């Protein structure tokens, strides 16, 4: 188990390297540069060229890359032109918000999807199964940004059950109970909106896996031992059916990150996704790179986590 985890963590090093190179190259390919929007147009173009030279804009790409990675390892992601503060500090506040939103979404997704998937798989081809499958297809087909807008309109503006923007009520003092409750209250609607339509993969994977597992020989063997139906499901079928979901967990996190970019913008929730979109439109180069890098690392960590979970559930992976 530890051997497996260690080896799996070592694999992350080349992954991170490729991620950083890709990001750097893509960022370089973005039109314009840090100076084009920030400097008074009355400044002499020759002076701008001089500045570009000074700041290393014309250095070969690997020199630029090396200096970027060097700073990165020291924890320096540069300075935001828009906010005039270090990118790390700017992201610090938002990471926490995004983390809680993602966690809440993930928990809600599984809370909805797992019971539905189990019901659907256990009673496959019945009316219940068809209703659940129908719901999951609707979720699959609905674009997140439209669904989120409808949710916002219905529960935020029309019924006014939930706040329509922000991550906490203005004026609450950090650390108090009210503060925590207000945070929860603010992230509930965006999390629920995203969870409700991202359940399809978990429901369908779980359903199909259960339908598949329940006709396997070892299930018949469990029945032939005299195990009751509930025991057969709880002890034998469910755990075996969790494997693909554990394997899918990493990808689920990647999807979540993609979704949170839309969700945070629609709900005016100050997280990383909102920051990313704003920064792209404002050419806040170092913030874009910083946030994208963080999203990339989160995906890699998600894959790592799902592999480790899988190795805990499945002994066949653990040994090797």
């Amino acid at each position, binding site marked *: 188990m530890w051997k497996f985890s260690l080896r799996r963590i070592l694999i992350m090093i080349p992954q991170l390297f490729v991620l950083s190179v890709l990001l750097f190259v893509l960022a370089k390919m973005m039109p314009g540069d840090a100076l084009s929007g920030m400097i008074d147009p009355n400044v002499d173009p020759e002076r701008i060229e001089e500045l570009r030279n000074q700041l290393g804009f014309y250095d070969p790409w690997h020199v630029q890359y090396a200096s970027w990675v060097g700073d990165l390892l020291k924890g320096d992601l540069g300075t935001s032109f828009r906010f005039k503060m270090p990118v790390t500090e700017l992201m610090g506040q938002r990471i926490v918000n995004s983390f809680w939103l993602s966690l809440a979404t993930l928990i809600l997704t599984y809370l909805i999807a797992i019971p539905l998937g189990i019901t659907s798989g256990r009673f496959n081809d019945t009316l219940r199964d068809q209703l659940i499958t129908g719901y999951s297809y609707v979720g699959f087909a609905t674009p997140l940004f439209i669904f989120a807008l409808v949710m916002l309109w219905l529960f935020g503006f029309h019924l006014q059950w939930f706040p329509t923007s922000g991550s906490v009520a203005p004026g609450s003092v950090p650390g108090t109970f009210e503060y925590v409750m207000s945070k929860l209250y603010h992230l509930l609607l965006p999390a629920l909106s995203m969870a409700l339509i991202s359940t399809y993969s978990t429901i369908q994977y779980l359903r199909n896996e259960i339908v598949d597992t329940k006709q*396997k*020989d*070892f299930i*018949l*063997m*469990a*029945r*032939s*031992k*005299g*195990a*009751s*139906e509930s*025991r057969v499901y709880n*002890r*034998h079928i469910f*755990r*075996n059916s969790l494997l693909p979901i554990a394997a899918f967990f990493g990808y689920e996190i990647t999807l979540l990150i993609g979704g949170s970019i839309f969700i945070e913008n629609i709900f005016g929730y100050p997280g990383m996704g909102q920051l990313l979109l704003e920064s792209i439109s404002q050419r806040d180069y170092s913030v874009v790179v910083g946030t994208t890098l963080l999203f990339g690392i989160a995906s890699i960590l998600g894959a790592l986590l799902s592999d480790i979970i899988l190795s805990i*559930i*499945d*002994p*066949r992976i653990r*040994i090797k």
Partner: protein
Amino acid sequence: MAEKLLEIKNLKTSFRIKDDYFAAVDDVSLTVNKNEVLAIVGESGCGKSALAFSIMGLHTRAKMEGNISFKGENIVGISPSKLNKLRGKNMGMIFQDPLTALNPLMEIGDQIGEALLLHNKELSKTQRKEKVIKLLNKVGIPRPEYVYEQFPHELSGGMRQRVVIATAIANEPELLIADEPTTALDVTIQSQILDLIKDLKEDMDSGIVLITHDLGVVAEMADRVAVMYAGQIVEIADVTTLFEEPLHPYTRSLFNSVPNAKEAQDRLHVIQGIVPSLQNLPRIGCRFAPRMPWIDGEAHEEHPEMHEVKPGHYVRCSCYKHFHFPEESKEEEHHGVS
């Protein structure tokens, strides 16, 4: 007369395909006595496993008609909780493929222990472990303490089949159903497993239903043999009678298809055609008739019945009186009958 353990009467197990029911097991009647091995032979797809699953009540979506009485009590259509009290305790089943019959995520010890746990709540955890280790010893697994904590994928096929057997006999069932227990194994392991099943029969005085398509296994193990074709039993007799004078055309064809080590043969006898699928079974007349087209249609009964030719020797349909292999001449046939 030996004590009856299992008595099946006119069992019909049907599966729903689209909107119709098709019988995979049709009008099967047989008995199994204590301390007896009844072998059920037949080609793939003739309903042997469907019959075994019917006895164990493992078909979840089948329609079952007829009567299966186990120790005098009917078990068709009884409640799941009653059935679960019998399964694993009074009747055990050995599955065909040891590679898929064990839960890949559960330790060997827990899988065997589950059978004990379900039927003997008083056993403490340590007692249960002791018993499982004894069982592992009994089925000839070396280093049982070590295997106890292993997972199925760490064991070979033969070892896994022993684990399956250990699970089936954990509570010393009176009836043991072995569904092709050696088909997935190589020959050396095969004979070890068969010896093991034989020993268990002697030890526990159990009745055994042995399902196989290997006539060698039948000769070695069985006391009585039932030959199944297309969901029906076509012939049933004790093992010596059946091997010495098989009557039904299907039985004779089966025996004729076995390679003979003593005489060199250019070609093996091949039964023409294949077992028809469930939907295509002939529902009227002799089901084997399409596979012996050279026999006159008049020879068959319209509704073939089981006929008792000798005490304990039953044959379905009267066509056996007129059967001959295509390479034999007509005269021989007439000679044979008279």
